[in-house]
């Protein structure tokens, strides 16, 4: 009993120290040593590199012009030159809208309908998240390309074909492919918590179903939708590989330029751009968190009954079926195309690509990539990431539900891993860890599994935090107060009452954290460089050649392995009795 008390007293501060320490070492330090270059000039520091970008028309278009000549805003209205930043924001807004439009009906179907395999489908919604951008690019070309599956079907039906590739539309669609499932999942969880009586009350007061939806359900879903929208916006804003692969350089984003500047070893411009990206994302996050803080509501008593998806034709069933078709095309299409590509060759159906994986496994040299090692590494790193990211994320969620000055600032900074350019993080990891840091006459290097897991955890914990914080805030205060009055310390209340009640949120965060770890490429490839710590996405990249077959086969392995993992994670949660 005594020992347990001591452990309780020490536990929370210790977790705090570990969390902050990890963040400091794995994120703040490497990012800071790179970002400092944005203000370093010979002989001191200056904001000049940043202001130079702000006033450059290439980056800020009409807004840069307006700094010296405000009249241009009127003169050229509405035909503005957006500049790189302007365009990046513009495409991110479109992507967010598309993701919300695609995600909301998904949330509706997941939350309000019953159909065989519903739980599995819900588990698998995180799958797009793990797909490396290379795979998405391949899948999208195969699905939406000129001779892709979609156009082939349209042609065979005698319908006009669509030209999507190398346009803004396909970029927006690919971003939606990544993020709509996130929105669907977060929103579905909120939807399941909407009390049926509220809708029924609205209906009894004469509101049509649609009106009741708008007036009663929408306001309750809004925080969840906006959480998803914020994340979508930030991810799309920072997008790089997808943009270049599907849209081309003509549709370049800021991150494309960060990457280019780093390639040209022009670190000053690269980091100045990254600082501006980061400030923009963090400002947006801060604004959102202010909003979220005002919205926190307690969850409901009696959720509405689910409707059987299969049954007599009704308006809402038709809607759900229609959505299922869209989802098949947008989400399943690219993945299915990849599966198809993995089993076809010039000779027709073939297992040659899988044979390749087996051969590689058997014959590869030490310095070559073995498929099974990649699978095992991915799973180990994914598990390791959870062990770090879940406690970290939960801890920061708990911190964010406490009232103290500067809370929102900490909350915002907790989201920083999403707001910092992936290229910059990679560069920081390379310099800080792979090259090492000199201290006390020694050069300390961190690499391999430990660094990869830590880097993944830093990239993943914000998902846990963002899922858990609203759920924690939604817990009835009187539960906490009751437990305390019964003699439970603050920590015990957290462990005995609050955390068990937010297990579904923790699980949702866990699934996405796992997905982040499995899909992470940029940092992993740097930290695994030349060693045996490569993961599945690294193997996929390595297997790309003139023929895509081997890479697509590895891609299918990645999908299967992670799909099964998701189902297991969710089943664990359901086994706990609070999965739904």
């Amino acid at each position, binding site marked *: 009993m005594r020992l347990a008390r001591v452990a309780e007293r020490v536990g929370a501060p210790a977790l705090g120290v570990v969390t902050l320490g990890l963040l400091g070492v794995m994120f703040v330090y490497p990012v800071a040593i790179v970002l400092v270059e944005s203000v370093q000039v010979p002989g001191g520091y200056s904001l000049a590199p940043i202001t130079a970008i702000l006033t450059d028309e*290439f980056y800020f*278009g009409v807004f840069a012009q307006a700094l010296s000549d405000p009249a241009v805003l009127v003169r050229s209205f509405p035909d503005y030159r957006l500049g*790189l930043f*302007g*365009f990046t924001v513009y495409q991110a807004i479109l992507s967010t809208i598309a993701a919300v439009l695609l995600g909301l009906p998904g949330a509706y179907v997941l939350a309000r309908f019953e159909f065989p395999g519903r739980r599995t489908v819900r588990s698998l919604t995180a799958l797009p998240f793990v797909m490396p951008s*290379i795979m998405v*690019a391949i899948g999208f*070309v195969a699905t939406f*390309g000129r*001779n892709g599956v979609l156009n082939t079907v349209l042609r065979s039906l005698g319908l006009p074909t669509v030209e999507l590739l190398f346009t803004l539309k396909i970029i927006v669609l690919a971003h939606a492919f990544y993020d709509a499932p996130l929105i669907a999942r977060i929103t579905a969880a909120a939807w399941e918590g909407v009390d049926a009586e509220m809708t029924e009350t609205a209906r009894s007061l004469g509101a049509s179903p649609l009106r009741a939806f708008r007036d009663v359900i929408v306001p309750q879903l809004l925080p969840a939708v906006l959480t998803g929208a914020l994340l979508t916006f930030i991810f799309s804003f920072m997008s790089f590989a997808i943009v*270049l*692969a599907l849209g*081309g*350089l*003509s549709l370049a984003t800021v991150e494309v*330029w960060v*990457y280019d500047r780093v*390639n*040209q*070893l022009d670190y000053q411009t690269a980091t100045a751009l990254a600082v501006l990206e980061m400030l923009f994302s963090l400002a947006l996050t801060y604004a959102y968190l202010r909003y979220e803080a005002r919205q926190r509501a307690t969850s409901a008593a009696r959720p509405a009954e689910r409707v059987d998806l299969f049954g007599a034709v009704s308006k809402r069933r038709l809607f759900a079926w229609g959505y299922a078709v869209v989802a098949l095309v947008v989400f399943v299409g690219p993945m299915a195309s990849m599966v198809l590509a993995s089993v076809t*060759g*010039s*000779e027709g159906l073939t297992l040659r690509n899988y044979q390749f994986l087996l051969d590689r496994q058997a014959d590869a040299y*030490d*310095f*070559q990539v073995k498929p099974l090692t990649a699978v095992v590494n991915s799973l180990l790193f994914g598990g390791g990431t959870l*062990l*770090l990211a*879940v*406690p970290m994320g*939960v801890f920061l969620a708990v911190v964010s539900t406490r009232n103290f000055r500067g809370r929102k600032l900490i909350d915002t900074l907790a989201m920083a891993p999403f707001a910092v350019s992936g290229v910059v993080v990679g560069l920081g990891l*390379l*310099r800080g860890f792979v090259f*090492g840091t000199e201290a006390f006459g*020694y*050069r*300390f*290097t*961190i*690499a*391999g599994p*430990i660094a990869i897991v830590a880097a993944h955890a830093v990239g993943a914990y914000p998902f846990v935090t963002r899922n858990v914080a609203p759920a924690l805030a939604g817990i009835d205060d009187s539960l906490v107060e009751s437990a305390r009055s019964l003699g439970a310390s603050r920590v015990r209340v957290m*462990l*005995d009452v609050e*955390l068990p009640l937010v*297990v579904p949120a923790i699980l949702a965060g866990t699934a996405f954290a796992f997905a982040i770890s499995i899909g992470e490429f940029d940092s992993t490839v740097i*930290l*695994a*460089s*030349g*060693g*045996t*710590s490569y993961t599945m996405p690294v193997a996929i990249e*390595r297997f*790309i*050649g*003139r023929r895509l077959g081997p890479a697509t086969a590895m891609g299918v392995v990645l999908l299967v392995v992670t799909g099964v993992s998701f189902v297991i994670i969710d089943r*664990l*949660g359901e086994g*706990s009795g609070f999965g739904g």
Partner: protein
Amino acid sequence: MDRRRFVKAVGAGVAGLAAGCSAEPTEDGSTETTDDATDSPTQSGTAEGTVTGTMSGQTPVLRVGTYSSYVDAPSTSPGPWLKEQFEAEYDAELQWFAPEGNMDYFLQRRQQNVTIDTDLFLGLTPENLVKADRETGEGDSLFTSVDTGDLSNESHVVDDYRFDPQDRAIPVGASYISLVYNQNLLDERGIGGPETFDDLTSEPYEDGLLVPNPQNSETGLEFLFWTVDQFGEDGYLDYWSDLMDNGTQVLKDWGTAYDAYSNGEAPMVVSFSTDQVYADRYDQDMAEHQIAFPNGQGYAYLEGAAPFTGTDKLDLATEFIDFVLQPEMQAEIAERNVGLPSVDNATLPDDYYDFVHEPDEIVSFGYDELMGNVEPWLNDWSQQIASQ
């Protein structure tokens, strides 16, 4: 499992992971290195007990940096074979090291004043050599010169392929940037393969060309150089403006562009003149793998091997380069890397040239032409393409 236990199980799981940290003294110039302290960060652990020390009496280790597909491509790569051959011939161990970022990785180490204990780099392009020299500054270099007197076959290196006046980078392989086109798709337009640069900006070839982004791809960058050569510093941007107006797409990298091409998104892609080797190997329709050399030219894609400044095994490195330059090696590497030898006395099978095409005229910028120009050329071009 009840929920409380689940949470505790997860919460208690901040367990120790396999160590991956190391510390190495920095003050002296000791050549003794531990496994972890090499610039290959994760060589430890599962590597099969290879001893990488350099203590006397042990087999010396030659660490060779390269790009990953040289040692680990899904098709064939010369790396593993070359290692076996070299080790059979010399009392040395060859250790491949293919870091993400290729040469930039070493250049960045140099910029951060971190020791480089890789001995030489294989696969150095002229523009990368220029980049390294630009960053290290006057009188200093990432690479060190090779005494060509020690290279028995050096005199047979094709003159057009030599790109380093200081003999740091010795050409060890070549290939040609060319257009690869799909005659089946061009048939639909009733035209044949493009013959000139102007064809590419003409209406029949509209929406026809995919280019790997020169910002991220050597292939694309050298195509850009080619247009500079063709239209001059003052004219290439106008040409590109016409190209883009004609629906040319600049895609992420060679892989993305080639994938889109393979899916029939466009009838032409900037790639290599060795394309038919693969098409033949995988029984693909040869009509979809036609090679075009606009204006009869091809841009020489060159790869050199260059020892790093500061290597303590310059002799072994030189021996390795000498070995690689041997005609038999050159022939075999060319086949395995699907490229061309850099020497004129390598004998390849007769049918090899059935599928490896060569242009009438070789275009290539030498060191002096590239020095000081790559960055402005590329930057001006990038800003023009991406202006929104």
